[in-house]
C-alpha cells in the first residue's frame, strides 16, 4: 500500500483505544523504523586503533558499510587479566569514537598538493628542457624564484598534482641537496613510533638509506624525563596501568588520569575500594583531584620543594630515627647511597669547607682493588663485614670487557665474597667536616654548609682525601640534624628557615606543612609495611619545566629511600606520550635501515631547532647565573648555545648537519689526500678540525651551508603543535608570516657560536608534509602528500599502559589518491633511485656518531672530567674525545631495491638491543618463507620482501623478542652471560610463541618478556619498571649499576645538580617586552600553563566537528574568576595572550577551577579553526606555542659518561616551555579581525609584525 493512501483511511485508523480514549492503537506502516536500523547495519567489522600518540592504545571495531567507514566502537575481546585484577576493557574514549569523521571530512587531504607558485616555477624549468634535478637546482640558484614560493608559506595557494610529478620534485630536491650541501641537510621529523611503527619506519628507512637525519621527539616534546637516564640509565620505563591497582598508597602529580589516561583511569578509582589512599597534587582543581583523599594545591613549578620535604620526613623517621630493615637493605643493594664520594676543599665568600666531588673508584687504590679491566669505571663502597673499601659487582666497568660480574648481588667483585655495604660512617668516622650544598631559593644563601661524617683515605696517587658516602651527604643535603653540630640543619619540621623542612616547603609551595609532613610519613610507612607498594603517578605537567630533572629526582629520591622502585604497586609511574615501542629490537633495523648500512644519522631535535629556528639568538638565560657558587666553572662566560657546541665537538650530542662542509666531499677530499680506509678518513678530518678548516655546523648555524634544506614531516604536527617557539619557526626556518615581537639580540655574546647581525629568514628549500588532514603543518609546507588514515592501512601499535600489541588495519582502501606511508616512501624511493643513478651514483659518506649509551663508548670519558681538545686539554680522538667518524657507502641508485628488502647485515652482523647482541639467521630464513622474497633483479634479489605493509609488520614481529619467543631466548641468553645469572625462567613458558599480524588482528596479544625492558609479563605480577633490576639483580645501566641519588659529572657539579636541589622556575623575561598599547590597558601577568586537552589528543580531534561541539568551538584559555574580575573580563570574551615571542588569541573561560596567577590553555590548540588575527602582531592569532621559546640546559648535554651518554630519544636537551609568562588582556568583539582578505603584495612583503625587522 501507499503511504498516501494510508493517510486516507480516516475511519479505519483507530484500531483500539485505551486510557479512557487518551491513547489509541493503530496499525500504521512501520517501515520507517528501518532507517534507524540501517544506521547501525554494516557489511564488516575490522580491528584497528588510533595512531595518535595517546597512551590509550585502544582496540576498536571499525564498521564498514558500502565500502565506507560508518562508525567505530570499543572492542571488548581482550584476554582476561588474572583473578584479582580488573580487566583492561572497555578501552576507548569520546575522542577515538569521533575519528571516523575525519575520513570524509573537509580536512581530509585527498590528492598530492603543492604550492602553486612552486609548481609553476618547476614546470617552467622542465619545459625549458632541464632534467628534474637541474630544474630544482635552477629554482634554488635564483633568490627571486626561491623567494616567490617561500614567502607565501602559510598563506594557502595549493594546487593539485599527481603522484608521478610530486615524487619527481621531492626526489630532485633531495638529490640536489645531497649533491650541493650534503645528505645531513635533509631532516625528517616524525614522533612516537609506537603509535604506527611501520609508518614511522617508512620515512626513517628512506632517510637512513640516503643519509638524511631523523630527528628525535621524546626529548623535543619535553616528555623525556631527563632524570630517568640520569638516575637509572633508562630512557623511561613505567608500570602498566593495571599496576596502579596493586598499589596501596598513590600520590598523583601532573598526570590527569581521567582526562588523559581515560581508558585506564578505572584502575585508580577501583583501587580505592581496597583502601588505597590517593593524594593529588595540582595547582588547579583538575579532574584527577576529584578522586583524591587529600588535595595538596601546590603552586605551579614548585613540586620539587614539596617532595624534598616529604623526603626529609621519610629519611629522618625511617633511616635515622629508626632504621627500617627493608629500606636499609634496598638502599645498600640497589642505590648508590653506600658509594663513596671524594670531597674537594673549597674556600669562598660563602664560607670554607668542602664540596662533594667525584665518586671514589677502584683505580684510586693501589692495585685497583683487584680490578684490571676498567678500574676507573668501578665505584667503591665500604664493606661493613671486612671493614675495607671494596669494588662491588655491577658498576658499568663490569659491563664491558668482561662477563659474569655485571649484577647487583652484594659481592666484592675481586673475591666474590658476600659484603654488606655500609650506608653511613657516622659511628666509625674519622672526622666531621662542613660540606657546602648549592641552594637556589632566591633570598637564601647560595651555598649551605652542613656537617658531614667522613673517612680519611690515601689514594694510589699519594693524595690524601676525605670521603663520605652518598648517604651521609644526602642526609646533610636534606637539612636533617644528626647531632653533628653546624648550621643549616633542622631538628624540627617547623623550622621554616632550613631548606627542605615541611615548614620551609610550605612557604615555597603554598601547601600546608602538616599535609606535607603527614603525606611523607604515610608514604614511607606504607612502603615499609608493604615492601614498597607506594607509588607516584606523574606526568607532563611537572615535567615540562626547565628544571624538570630536579622535580623528578626529588620524587625518585623519595621512592628509593622507601624501596618502591621495582616493586609491583610501587615506584614511579611517569606518563606522557605513547612511548613504549615494545617490539623495538625488531623494528629498529628496518626503521633505520640497519639491515643495509650502519650507523644511521640521528639528531636530538631540541638542539636542532634551537639553532636552526634561531631561538638561541633570543636567549635571555645567562648560563653563569645557573651555576653554583662552588663551580669549577671552566666554561664561565659561555652562553647556553656555546655549551651545545662544546657537547657536539666532544662527541656528547649529535649535530645535523655535522660539519660546515658536505660529508660526501669531505670523504672524497680525504681519499684524494691519500686516505684508504675509515681510519684514514678520520685522521684527515681530525687534522682538518684541529687546523680549523673544518668545524661543527652549530658553531655557525646561520651560515647558508649549515642550514637544513629539506624537511619531511609525517605522522606529526610539528608547526601546529610541538613547535615551541612557533613564531621563530615561521620567521627563521620557514621565512613565513610570523608574529615574533622582538628584534632579537639577547643571545649575542656567544663564544663558540658565530654571531651574524643579519638573521636568516627561510632556511628550508622544501618542506614536505604527509598527513590525512590539513593542519597547521600542512598549511606551511610546500608539498602535502595524502596518506591513509588509521582505518586504511596495516600497521602496529603498542603503549606503556597495557601489555598488548595491536594492529592498525585496512578496513577500507585508502580514500581518494591517498596511500599508506610505507607505500608513499616506497614510491619516493623509486623515483629517487631512477634520478640518483645518474646524478649521484655510489658515494661515500661520513657519519659523526656521538658516544652511544649501551655501547662500550659510554666509557669514553672517565671520572666525569671534561677534557676539551679545542682548548688543548687533550688530543681529538674519534670515539674518545671526538665523535666517532664512520664511513658509510651509499649506493644511491639502489635505494629502492634496498628499501623493499630485508638486507644482508641481519645475517652478517645480527641484531642487538641495549648492548646485547644475537644472531638472526633463523628469523631471516623464516621471513623468506613468510613474506616471500624480492623478485626484482638486483642487489636485493631473493631477500625477504618488505614490499607490502603487512610483510613489514611481520618482519618486525619476527625479529623482536617481545613477539617471538625464540628471539626472547637468544636475547636473554646474551644478558645471562653478562650478568652471570640465569634469567631464562622469565620467558620459558612462551619460548615457542610467535605472534603474527593475523594473530593480533584476531585478538589483542600479550607480549613476551624481553630484556629490552625492565619489567616482566607474568601471571603473578603486573608489568612494572625496574622489576628485573631488583628481582633479577640486573644492574641499572648507570655508572654504579645502581639507582643514582648523586651525579658526579663536572657539569652537574658546576650547575649545582650533583644532588637534587629545589630550583624555582626560571625567568625568561619575555613578558617584560609587550607593546605599550597592551601595557596601557588593564592586563594580567600570568604563568602559561598548557596541559593536555579534554577534547583532543594533541592537535588531533580538537578540530573535528564532533569535539568542537563539546566546548567552545575554537581556542580557549582558563582564567581565574578573581583575576578576570580585576580586568573586567567576562566568560567567553576574546583575549590575547602576548609576550615578546608572539601572541595567541582565545576565548576566556572564567572559572574557579584555576588559581590566580595562571592562564591555562589546553595544549595543541592550533590555528586552523576559528582563530582570528591577533591585534598586536597583525597575523593569525597563533597557537599555544606562539608565546613560548625553548631554553636548553647544559647538564642535559653531557655525554660519553656511562648513563650520561647519548642515545636517540634517550638523552639530550629537552624542549621545555612551561616557565613562560604571558600578558593577557581582553580584546573587544569589534576589534576581532578574521583576516579574510585577499593576498596583496603589501601583505606578502610584510612578513614580520609592523615595526619589527625594519632597522
Amino acid at each position, binding site marked *: 500500500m*501507499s*503511504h498516501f493512501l494510508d493517510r486516507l483511511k480516516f475511519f479505519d485508523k483507530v*484500531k483500539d483505544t485505551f486510557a479512557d*480514549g*487518551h491513547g489509541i492503537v493503530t496499525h500504521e506502516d512501520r*517501515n520507517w523504523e528501518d*532507517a534507524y536500523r540501517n544506521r547501525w547495519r554494516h557489511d564488516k567489522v575490522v580491528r584497528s586503533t588510533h595512531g595518535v600518540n595517546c597512551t590509550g592504545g585502544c582496540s576498536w571495531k571499525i564498521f564498514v558499510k558500502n565500502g565506507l567507514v560508518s562508525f567505530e566502537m570499543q572492542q571488548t575481546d581482550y584476554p582476561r587479566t588474572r583473578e584479582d585484577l580488573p580487566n583492561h576493557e572497555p578501552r576507548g574514549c569520546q575522542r577515538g569514537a569521533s575519528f571516523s569523521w575525519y575520513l570524509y571530512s573537509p580536512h581530509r587531504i585527498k590528492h598530492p598538493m603543492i604550492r602553486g607558485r612552486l609548481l609553476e616555477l618547476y614546470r617552467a624549468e622542465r619545459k625549458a628542457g632541464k632534467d628534474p634535478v637541474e630544474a630544482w637546482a635552477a629554482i634554488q640558484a635564483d633568490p627571486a624564484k626561491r623567494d616567490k614560493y617561500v614567502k607565501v608559506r602559510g598563506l594557502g595557494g595549493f594546487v593539485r598534482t599527481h603522484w608521478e610529478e610530486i615524487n619527481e620534485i621531492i626526489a630532485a630536491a633531495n638529490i640536489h641537496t645531497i649533491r650541493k650541501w650534503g645528505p645531513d641537510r635533509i631532516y625528517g621529523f616524525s614522533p612516537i613510533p609506537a603509535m604506527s611503527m611501520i609508518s614511522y619506519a617508512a620515512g626513517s628507512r628512506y632517510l637512513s638509506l640516503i643519509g638524511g637525519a631523523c630527528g628525535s621527539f621524546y626529548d623535543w616534546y619535553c616528555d623525556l624525563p631527563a632524570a630517568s637516564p640520569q638516575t637509572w640509565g633508562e630512557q623511561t620505563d613505567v608500570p602498566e596501568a593495571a599496576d596502579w591497582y596493586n598499589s596501596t598508597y598513590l600520590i598523583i602529580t601532573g598526570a590527569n588520569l581521567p582526562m588523559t589516561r581515560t581508558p585506564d583511569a578505572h584502575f585508580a578509582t577501583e583501587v580505592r575500594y581496597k583502601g588505597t589512599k590517593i593524594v593529588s597534587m595540582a595547582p588547579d582543581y583538575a579532574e584527577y583531584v576529584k578522586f583524591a583523599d587529600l588535595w595538596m594545591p601546590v603552586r605551579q613549578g614548585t613540586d620539587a620543594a614539596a617532595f624534598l620535604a616529604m623526603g626529609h620526613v621519610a629519611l629522618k623517621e625511617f633511616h635515622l630515627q629508626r632504621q627500617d630493615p627493608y629500606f636499609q637493605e634496598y638502599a645498600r643493594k640497589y642505590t648508590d647511597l653506600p658509594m663513596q664520594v671524594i670531597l674537594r676543599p673549597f674556600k669562598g665568600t660563602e664560607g670554607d669547607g668542602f664540596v662533594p666531588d667525584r665518586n671514589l673508584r677502584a683505580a684510586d687504590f693501589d692495585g685497583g682493588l683487584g680490578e684490571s679491566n676498567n678500574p676507573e669505571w668501578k665505584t667503591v663502597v665500604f664493606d661493613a663485614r671486612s671493614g675495607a673499601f671494596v669494588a662491588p659487582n655491577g658498576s658499568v666497568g663490569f659491563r664491558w670487557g668482561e662477563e659474569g660480574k655485571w649484577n647487583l648481588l652484594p659481592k666484592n667483585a675481586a673475591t666474590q665474597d658476600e659484603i654488606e655495604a655500609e650506608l653511613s660512617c657516622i659511628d666509625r668516622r674519622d672526622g666531621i667536616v662542613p660540606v657546602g650544598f648549592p641552594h637556589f631559593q632566591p633570598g637564601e644563601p647560595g651555598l649551605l654548609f652542613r656537617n658531614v661524617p667522613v673517612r680519611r683515605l690515601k689514594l694510589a696517587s699519594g693524595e690524601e682525601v676525605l670521603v663520605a658516602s652518598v648517604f651521609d651527604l644526602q642526609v646533610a643535603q636534606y637539612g636533617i640534624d644528626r647531632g653533628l653540630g653546624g648550621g643549616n640543619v633542622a631538628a624540627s619540621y617547623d623550622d621554616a628557615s632550613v631548606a627542605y623542612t615541611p615548614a620551609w616547603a610550605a612557604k615555597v609551595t603554598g601547601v600546608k606543612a602538616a599535609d606535607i609532613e603527614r603525606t611523607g610519613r604515610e608514604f614511607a610507612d606504607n612502603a615499609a609495611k608493604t615492601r614498597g607498594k607506594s607509588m607516584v603517578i606523574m606526568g607532563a605537567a611537572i615535567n615540562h619545566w626547565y628544571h624538570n630533572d630536579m622535580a623528578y629526582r626529588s620524587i625518585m629520591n623519595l621512592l628509593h629511600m622507601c624501596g618502591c622502585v621495582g616493586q609491583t604497586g610501587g615506584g614511579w609511574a611517569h606518563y606522557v606520550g605513547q612511548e613504549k615501542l615494545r617490539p623495538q629490537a625488531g623494528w629498529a633495523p628496518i626503521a633505520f635501515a640497519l639491515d643495509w648500512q650502519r650507523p644511521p644519522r640521528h639528531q636530538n631535535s631540541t638542539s636542532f631547532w634551537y639553532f636552526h629556528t634561531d631561538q638561541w639568538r633570543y636567549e635571555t638565560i645567562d648560563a653563569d647565573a645557573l651555576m653554583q657558587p662552588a663551580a669549577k666553572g671552566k666554561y664561565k662566560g659561555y652562553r647556553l648555545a656555546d655549551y651545545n657546541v662544546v657537547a657536539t665537538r666532544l662527541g656528547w650530542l649529535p649535530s645535523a648537519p655535522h660539519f660546515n662542509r658536505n660529508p660526501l666531499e669531505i670523504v672524497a677530499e680525504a681519499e684524494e689526500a691519500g686516505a684508504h680506509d675509515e681510519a684514514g678518513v678520520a685522521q684527515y678530518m681530525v687534522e682538518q678540525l684541529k687546523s680549523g678548516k673544518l668545524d661543527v655546523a652549530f658553531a655557525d648555524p646561520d651560515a647558508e651551508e649549515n642550514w637544513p634544506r629539506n624537511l619531511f614531516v609525517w605522522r606529526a604536527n610539528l608547526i601546529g603543535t610541538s613547535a615551541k617557539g612557533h613564531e621563530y619557526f615561521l620567521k627563521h626556518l620557514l621565512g613565513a608570516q610570523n608574529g615574533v615581537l622582538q628584534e632579537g639580540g639577547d643571545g649575542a655574546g656567544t663564544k663558540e657560536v658565530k654571531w651574524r647581525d643579519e638573521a636568516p629568514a627561510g632556511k628550508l628549500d622544501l618542506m614536505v608534509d604527509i598527513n590525512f588532514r590539513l593542519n597547521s603543518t600542512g598549511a606551511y609546507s610546500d608539498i602535502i602528500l595524502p596518506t591513509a588514515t588509521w582505518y586504511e592501512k596495516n600497521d602496529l601499535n603498542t603503549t606503556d599502559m597495557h601489555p598488548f600489541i595491536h594492529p592498525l588495519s585496512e578496513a577500507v582502501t585508502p580514500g581518494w589518491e591517498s596511500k599508506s606511508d610505507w607505500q608513499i616512501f616506497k614510491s619516493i624511493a623509486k623515483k629517487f633511485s631512477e634520478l640518483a643513478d645518474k646524478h649521484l651514483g655510489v658515494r661515500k659518506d661520513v657519519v659523526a656518531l656521538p658516544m652511544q649509551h649501551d655501547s662500550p663508548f659510554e666509557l669514553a670519558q672517565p671520572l666525569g672530567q671534561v677534557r676539551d681538545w679545542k682548548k688543548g686539554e687533550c688530543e681529538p680522538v674519534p670515539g674518545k674525545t671526538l665523535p666517532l667518524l664512520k664511513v658509510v657507502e651509499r649506493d644511491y641508485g639502489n635505494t629502492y631495491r634496498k628499501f623493499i628488502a630485508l638486507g644482508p647485515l641481519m645475517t652478517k652482523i645480527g641484531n642487538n638491543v641495549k648492548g646485547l647482541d644475537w644472531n638472526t639467521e633463523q628469523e631471516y630464513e623464516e621471513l623468506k618463507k613468510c613474506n616471500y622474497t624480492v623478485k626484482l633483479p638486483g642487489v636485493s634479489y631473493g631477500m625477504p620482501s618488505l614490499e607490502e605493509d603487512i610483510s613489514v609488520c611481520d618482519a618486525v614481529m619476527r625479529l623482536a623478542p617481545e613477539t617471538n619467543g625464540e628471539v626472547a631466548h637468544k636475547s636473554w641468553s646474551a644478558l645471562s652471560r653478562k650478568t652471570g645469572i640465569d634469567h631464562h625462567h622469565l620467558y620459558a613458558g612462551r619460548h615457542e610463541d610467535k605472534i603474527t599480524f593475523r594473530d593480533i588482528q584476531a585478538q589483542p596479544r600479550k607480549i613476551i618478556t624481553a630484556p629490552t625492558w625492565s619489567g616482566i609479563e607474568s601471571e603473578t605480577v603486573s608489568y612494572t619498571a625496574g622489576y628485573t633490576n631488583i628481582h633479577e639483580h640486573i644492574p641499572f645501566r648507570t655508572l654504579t649499576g645502581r639507582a643514582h641519588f648523586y651525579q658526579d659529572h663536572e657539569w652537574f657539579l658546576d650547575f649545582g645538580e650533583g644532588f637534587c636541589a629545589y630550583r624555582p622556575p626560571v625567568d625568561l623575561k619575555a613578558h617584560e617586552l609587550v607593546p605599550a598599547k597592551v601595557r596601557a590597558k588593564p592586563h594580567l601577568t600570568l604563568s602559561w600553563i598548557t596541559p593536555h586537552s579534554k577534547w583532543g589528543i594533541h592537535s588531533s580531534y580538537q578540530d573535528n566537528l564532533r569535539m568542537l561541539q563539546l566546548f567552545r568551538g575554537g581556542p580557549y584559555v582558563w582564567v581565574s574568576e578573581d583575576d578576570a574580575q580585576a580586568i573586567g573580563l567576562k566568560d567567553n570574551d576574546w583575549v590575547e595572550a602576548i609576550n615578546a615571542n608572539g601572541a595567541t588569541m582565545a576565548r576566556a573561560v572564567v572559572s574557579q577551577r584555576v588559581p590566580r596567577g595562571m592562564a591555562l590553555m589546553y595544549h595543541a590548540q592550533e590555528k586552523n579553526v576559528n582563530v582570528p588575527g591577533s591585534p598586536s602582531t597583525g597575523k593569525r592569532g597563533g597557537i599555544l606555542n606562539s608565546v613560548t621559546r625553548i631554553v636548553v640546559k647544559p647538564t642535559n648535554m653531557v655525554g660519553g659518561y656511562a648513563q650520561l651518554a647519548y642515545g636517540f630519544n634517550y638523552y639530550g636537551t629537552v624542549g621545555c616551555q612551561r616557565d613562560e609568562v604571558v600578558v593577557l588582556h581582553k580584546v573587544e568583539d569589534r576589534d576581532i579581525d578574521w583576516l579574510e582578505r585577499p593576498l596583496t603584495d603589501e601583505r606578502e612583503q610584510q612578513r614580520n609584525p609592523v615595526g619589527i625587522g625594519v632597522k
Partner: protein
Amino acid sequence: MNLQDFLMNVVFGVYPYVALTVFIVGSWIRYDNEQYTWKTDSSLLLSKRYMLLASNLFHIGILSIFLGHFAGLVLPHGFWIALGVSDMAHQWLAIVAGSVFGTMCLVGGTILWLRRVFNPRVRAASRYMDNAILSLIMVTLVLGLSTIPVSIGHASHGDPTVMLTLSQYIQGILTLNPQPQLLAGVEPIFRAHMFLGMTIFLLFPFSRLVHVWTAPFNYLGRAYQIVRSKRRVRSA
C-alpha cells in the same frame, strides 16, 4: 486555428491540466517514495535574524491569499449571491483583502528572499530549487499585486465582468470543461499572473512546498498517546 488561439489553448487549456496532474501525482509519488525529503527544510537553525517577522508575514499573507483565491474564484457564483454579497462588494472585498495580505506577503517574502541570497550561512545551505521557488512565488505575487490597479479600474466603473470571467474560467477547468477562449478578453497581466501561478503548482512536488500538505494541524485534536501495533501492515 491561428497561432494565438493555439497558444491560448496550450497555455490555458492544456497546461492547467499538466500542472494539476504533476501537482497531485508528483506529490503522491514523492510522499510515497521520498519520505525523508518531505519537510520544510527550515533554515531557522542557521540564522534566526528577522526570521520571526518575515516568516509570519509571509506565511499569514500567502495562506490568506490562497484562501481568498479559493473563496473568490472556486466557490460558485451563486454561493455569494445567496449570502447577499453583490458582485461589486465581492470585488471590493477582494481588492482590499488582496492588498493587505499581498503586501504582508510581499514584505515577508522580500526579507526571506534577501536572507536567502545574502546571508552566507543560509545561502550556503540553499539548493537551486529553494531559490527558484521562492523567486517564482515572489514574481507571481508581484504580478498579482499589479492586477490590483486594473481591478480598481474595473471596480470604479462598476464592472465586475473580468472577475466573473476569471471565476468562470477556473471553474471550467475544475469541472473538466476548459474554456481558454474566455481569457481572450482579459488584460494580459491577469494571464501572466495565472500562468506563473500554474507553474507554482507544476513545481510544487519538486520543491519544499510539499510541506504545505502536511501542516501538523492534527496535533490539535489527536490522542495523547499513539501505540503503533507490531502487526506488519505490508511486507517490506
